[in-house]
């Protein structure tokens, strides 16, 4: 029963009785509150509600007997649709297939590199991880340590040039018939011109098959700013949302999806190497609506 699941919204809407033109405004405000509390960006929430209203009017739900219930059903379905109702795949057609990881500091890129590597290894693919973060203290050691843990080799050139490291790693992978190369990069601010140029340079030289934006699922309103900037700098092919084993509602998922237009492909659900799952839009919608 949908109204049992979204008790919070339903309790708020129930008090409004039949949804009419006069209280649709109030209804929208209540929905907006729920979305904002879940960290969905304000403008994204507004656009979403406008879209839902149009849909509601289109299905004549506003004249129905149980408007609250119907309205919530539309919101829920629309949210699932926005989050991406198709499961997204990773492009494994390259020889090798190259995956470039990008994102803000601390979002979980290095850990996710290893999780992806383990997943592909389990599928009997030959994987190479590349330590292209030459800035963060012991970043290379971190990737090497994870590589030992999952028995996947790590390519590094110490504190060299990240662009050269990536180019050389892909060349080596080609010659060794590696299936998948995963490029771990340094966390960077979207407003750091030099660092954004660097990752654009890597993309330009290597032409990866996948460019994945790794984002913390607990991100707040600013998710639109950083995600938009990354998607304008790089042709992102997908997003990975991390730390979903926390209890953040995860509204950033909607913001990021809206602003980048790319599918959310995976969810990080623990610190462990098996803590990666395909993204589940329905579960995410449940979580956001609380």
């Amino acid at each position, binding site marked *: 029963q949908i109204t049992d699941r979204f008790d919070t919204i339903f309790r708020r809407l129930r008090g409004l009785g039949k949804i009419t033109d006069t209280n649709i405004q109030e209804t929208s405000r209540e929905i907006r509150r729920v979305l904002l509390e879940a*960290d969905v960006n304000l403008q994204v929430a507004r656009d979403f509600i406008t879209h839902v209203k149009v849909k509601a009017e289109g299905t004549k739900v506003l004249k129905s007997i149980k408007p609250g219930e119907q309205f919530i059903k539309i919101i829920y379905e629309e949210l699932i649709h926005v989050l991406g109702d198709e499961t997204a795949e990773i492009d494994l057609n390259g020889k090798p297939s190259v995956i470039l990881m990008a994102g803000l500091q*601390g979002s979980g890129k290095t850990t996710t590199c290893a999780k992806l590597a383990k997943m592909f290894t389990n599928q009997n693919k030959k994987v190479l991880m590349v330590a292209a973060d030459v800035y963060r*203290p*012991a970043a290379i050691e971190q990737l090497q*340590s994870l590589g030992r843990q999952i028995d996947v080799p790590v390519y590094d050139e110490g504190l060299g040039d990240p662009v050269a490291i990536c180019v050389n790693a892909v060349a080596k992978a080609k010659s060794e018939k590696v299936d998948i190369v995963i490029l771990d990069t340094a966390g960077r*601010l*979207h407003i750091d011109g030099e660092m954004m140029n660097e990752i654009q340079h890597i993309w330009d030289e290597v032409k990866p098959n996948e460019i994945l934006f790794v984002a913390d699922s607990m991100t*707040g309103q600013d998710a639109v700013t950083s995600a938009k900037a990354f998607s304008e700098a790089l042709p992102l092919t997908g997003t990975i949302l991390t730390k979903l084993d926390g209890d953040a509602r995860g509204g950033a998922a909607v913001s990021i999806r809206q602003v980048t237009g790319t599918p959310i492909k995976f969810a990080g659900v623990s*610190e462990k190497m098996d803590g990666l799952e395909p993204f589940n839009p329905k579960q995410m919608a449940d979580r956001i609506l609380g």
Partner: protein
Amino acid sequence: QIVKEKVSLQSLEQLEETLLASDLGLSTVDDILDIVKKHSKENFINEVADYMQQSLGHEKELEIKSPSVMLVVGVNGTGKTTTVAKLAKYYKDQGKSVLLVAADTYRAAAIAQLHQWSKRLNVRMVCNEKSQDPTSVLFDGLKSAKSENIDLVIVDTAGRLHTYKNLMNELEKMVRVIRDRFPEFNLCSIMTIDANLGQNSLHQVREFAKSVHLDGAVLTKMDGTARGGIVFALKNELDLPVLFIGIGEELNDLNEFAADEYINSLLG
């Protein structure tokens, strides 16, 4: 950019948008809008600034009485290890003797990361590569600090989500060791809050505070575009003051929190 003008519906909406976009959260923004609506006079932005200043209170300074131990805790990736290094520099520059304890015994290369910082700082670090027990490393660190008359021990801990009861218990155990075995050490605990994160930071702090009394927060990654407006709720609802802000990835990138500067950056 909010224009200083008389309160109109449009200016209220603009204020609401600006504050929500900075992650102040609905209930804090509602409170502020109520104040503005009640006292709708000219120049309501000053009204807002005053209210915000009152909320955040006066600058809090941590008193570091020797010997002290500072636990740095927080959620994964929020900047604990980097902040530990910055704090070490801050207090070393004040003439205090500092010792670092690498009590993140879990994450790959966590010890190596802090070790890099300790070398750059020329500050000693206590660690145990083979240990999987952060409490025992903490114990070694405090024993060492005691014998060397160290002023301040700064402890780097593993990132953790409050949803893991066993990890919260681990923090409680560390506090117990300090209180029971090293009662002469003054304990203060600092939590890192990532300015990029949303309303869940309030919940994080609430939960962490059940396991360890928090003396203050460091708002990290304020050199990005996120504004960390959750600090108002942290102070108003949980009485947690922000002591420092992190403005970059280097040792010098730590500023004492200045409420007036912060408020100006929010209100433009």
